[in-house]
C-alpha cells in the first residue's frame, strides 16, 4: 500500500495524535520552567531549559517504549501504537533541542570547537562519578537521529524490513545509554532522592513490561514448537476459526501462519505484515481482505496481494480438509500465489 511515497503522511487521526503528544510535552516543559524559575530567584532559564528538554525527551522515549508491550496486554493501547513513528520523530526533535542547547551553552563560546570540547572537556574518565556522561548522551542522540532519518516507509522498503527492524531495535540501546547518561550526569549533580527513584521506575517499567510480554510469547512458542514437524500441520475444525478472524499457527522454524475464515471460506497467509511486520493474525477480514491490526494494510485472502491500486504481496499457504479438520502445508508459497480457499461443506471432489 506504500507504493507512492509522501514526505509525511497525515490523516485526521494522526493529526490528533500529533497534537496530543506535542501538548503533553508543552505542558511538561511549561510547568517545569514555571516551577524552576519560581523556586529560586537565581535560577538560570537556559540551564533550566536544558534540563526541561532533556528530561522531557527521556519521558517521551519511556512512553514510546511502553506502548508496545501495553498494546500486547490490552487492545485499548493499539491506537497509540498506530502513530508511534511521528511520536518517535517528535521525541528526536526534543532531544535535538536539548543537545543543541547544552552543546552551545556548555561547550560553545570557548577556545575549542564545541564538538571537540564535547570529547575533551570532561577529563576524569576513570571513575564512575567522573565518567564523561556527555558522550553517552551523544551516542544515544546519534541512534535517535538515524532512526528519525530512516523512519519513512521509503527507507523501510529500501533497507528491507529486517535491516530496518534491526536498526530500529537500537532504540533499546539508546534507552540504556540514556539511563546511564542521566545516572552519571544529572544524578551526580542533583542530590534529591526523587531522581534516582524516577529513573529506576521508568527503566523498571519498560524492562518489566517487555519481559512479561516477551516471556509469555516465548512460553507459547516453546510449547508449540515441541510438537514435531509433520508434512501437514493440523490447525483446527473449520468452525473453531472465528468468522472474519484468524487463528495463528506457529511453525517449528519460528514462522507463524495466520489461518483466516471469511464465512465459508478459509485461507492461510503469513502472519507477518509487509509494512512493519505487524501480526496479521490479530487482524480481521474487512471487505474480504485480511486487514493488519497495526496500520490497516490489506491483502486479499486468497492470493495475499493488496487490492488495487496497491501491489504489496505476502506469502500464502496451502490448506486441505481431512476428517473434518483443516490442515496446513508448512511450506510457504511465493508471495502473491493464488490458492483456492477451502470452502466449508464442500468435498475435495467438488473442488476439483
Amino acid at each position, binding site marked *: 500500500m506504500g507504493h507512492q511515497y509522501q514526505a509525511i503522511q497525515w*490523516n485526521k487521526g*494522526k493529526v490528533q495524535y500529533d497534537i496530543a503528544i506535542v501538548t503533553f*510535552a508543552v*505542558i*511538561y*516543559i511549561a*510547568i*517545569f*520552567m514555571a*516551577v*524552576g524559575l519560581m*523556586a*529560586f530567584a*537565581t535560577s*538560570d532559564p537556559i540551564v*533550566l531549559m536544558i534540563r526541561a528538554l532533556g528530561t522531557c525527551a527521556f*519521558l517521551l522515549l519511556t*512512553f514510546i517504549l511502553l506502548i508496545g508491550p501495553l498494546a500486547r496486554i490490552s487492545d*485499548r493501547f493499539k*491506537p497509540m501504537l498506530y502513530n508511534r513513528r511521528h511520536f518517535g520523530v517528535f521525541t528526536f526533535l526534543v532531544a535535538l533541542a536539548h543537545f543543541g542547547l547544552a552543546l552551545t*551553552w*556548555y*561547550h560553545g*563560546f*570557548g*577556545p*575549542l570547537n564545541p564538538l571537540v*570540547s564535547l570529547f575533551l*572537556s*570532561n*577529563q*576524569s574518565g576513570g571513575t564512575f562519578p*567522573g565518567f564523561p*556522561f*556527555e558522550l553517552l548522551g551523544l551516542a544515544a542522540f546519534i541512534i535517535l537521529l538515524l532512526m528519525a532519518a530512516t523512519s519513512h516507509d521509503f527507507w523501510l522498503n529500501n533497507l528491507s524490513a529486517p535491516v530496518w527492524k534491526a536498526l530500529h531495535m537500537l532504540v533499546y540501546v539508546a534507552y540504556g545509554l540514556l539511563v546511564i547518561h542521566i545516572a552519571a*550526569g544529572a544524578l*551526580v*549533580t*542533583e542530590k*534529591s532522592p*526523587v*531522581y534516582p527513584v524516577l529513573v529506576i521506575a521508568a527503566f523498571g517499567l519498560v524492562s518489566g513490561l517487555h519481559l512479561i510480554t516477551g516471556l509469555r*510469547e516465548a512460553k*507459547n512458542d516453546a510449547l*508449540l514448537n515441541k510438537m514435531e514437524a509433520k508434512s501437514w500441520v493440523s*490447525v*483446527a475444525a473449520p468452525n473453531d476459526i*472465528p468468522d472474519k478472524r*484468524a*487463528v*495463528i*499457527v*506457529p511453525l517449528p522454524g519460528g514462522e507463524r501462519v495466520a489461518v483466516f475464515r471469511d464465512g465459508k471460506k478459509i485461507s492461510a497467509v503469513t502472519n507477518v505484515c509487509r509494512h512493519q511486520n505487524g501480526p496479521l*493474525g*490479530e*487482524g480481521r477480514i474487512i471487505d474480504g481482505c485480511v486487514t493488519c*491490526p*497495526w*496500520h*490497516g494494510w490489506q491483502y486479499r485472502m486468497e492470493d495475499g496481494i493488496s487490492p488495487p491500486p496497491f501491489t504489496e504481496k505476502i506469502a500464502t499457504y496451502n490448506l486441505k480438509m481431512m476428517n473434518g479438520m483443516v490442515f496446513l502445508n508448512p511450506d510457504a508459497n511465493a508471495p502473491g500465489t493464488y490458492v483456492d480457499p477451502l470452502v466449508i461443506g464442500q468435498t475435495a471432489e467438488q473442488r476439483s
Partner: protein
Amino acid sequence: MKRAGSILIPRPHREDDFFIGWAKPPAVDRRFLLGAVPTIAAFSGGLGWLVANELADPGAGSWQTSSTHTVTGQLVRDPYPMIRSVDPNGNYKTTLVVAMGKCTSSLELAMAAGGVHTGTGVLIERRGRHMLEVPFDDAAWLSPAPTNVTIPDVVSEVVIESISLQGMIMDTKCFFGVMRPGRGKTHKACASLCIRGGIPPSFWAHTKDGREVVMLLTDENGNAVSTDILPFVAEAVEAEGSVVRSGDWLQFRVATSKYRLI
C-alpha cells in the same frame, strides 16, 4: 493471545472493537482515549512539577547583563586580569576582568597593564565579590582614569605556609553568576573549557563550621595555573599548598602535583 492445542487464538474483540489507523476508531477506543488523554496530560504536568521542584538551589550570584558597571583602578595582568581599586577607607577592592565568552586569555591588555584606568563592562557579582565582563579590544572598554587617582602597590603576605584543603576548583566566571548552577558534574565540561580559555579558577572550600571560603587559585609561584589541572576541575579534590593574602583576596597556591581526587 490464547493457546489451544497447536494453535494460537488472538484475543477476541467485538465487531466494532477493532482499531484500524485509516478508519474512524471504534467507540470503545474513543472512550478509552477520551479518558487517557487528560490523564496523560495531568501526569505530564505533575511530573514537570515534581522534577523541577526537586532541583537544588543554584546558588548565589548574578550576571547583570542589562546594565553596565564602571570601575577605576590599577590594571593588573598577572596572575589573572584584574582591576585593583581602593575605597575611601584605604581598603583594596579587586575586580577580576574576563572577556565575553570563555576566552579570557585572548584579552589584549598589553599596553594598558600597570597603569590606572577606568573599565566599563557587565558586572558579575557573587556575595560582594566583583568581576567585570568586557570585550576583547582594550579600546572598547578601557579609558584613561582621572589623573588624581593613585593606587598603592599591593604587598602580598603569606598567611599559611602549607595546608591541605578539601574543596572544588571552580571557573570563577560561571561560579560568580553566569551559570546558575555553575557547579557540579553537569557543569564540569564548561568549567574546564573556561579554565582552558584563561578564566581565573577559584578554590571553593568550607570551614568546619560551614562558612564558605573562596580563594583565587594559582600555581605554587603565584602564576596562572596550567591546563594540567583540568582533570581536577569541578570534582571534589584535596589540594596542598600555601595561602597568600593579596589585597582583599586570598590566593591558594598549589603545585599541579599536589591535587588529589577524593
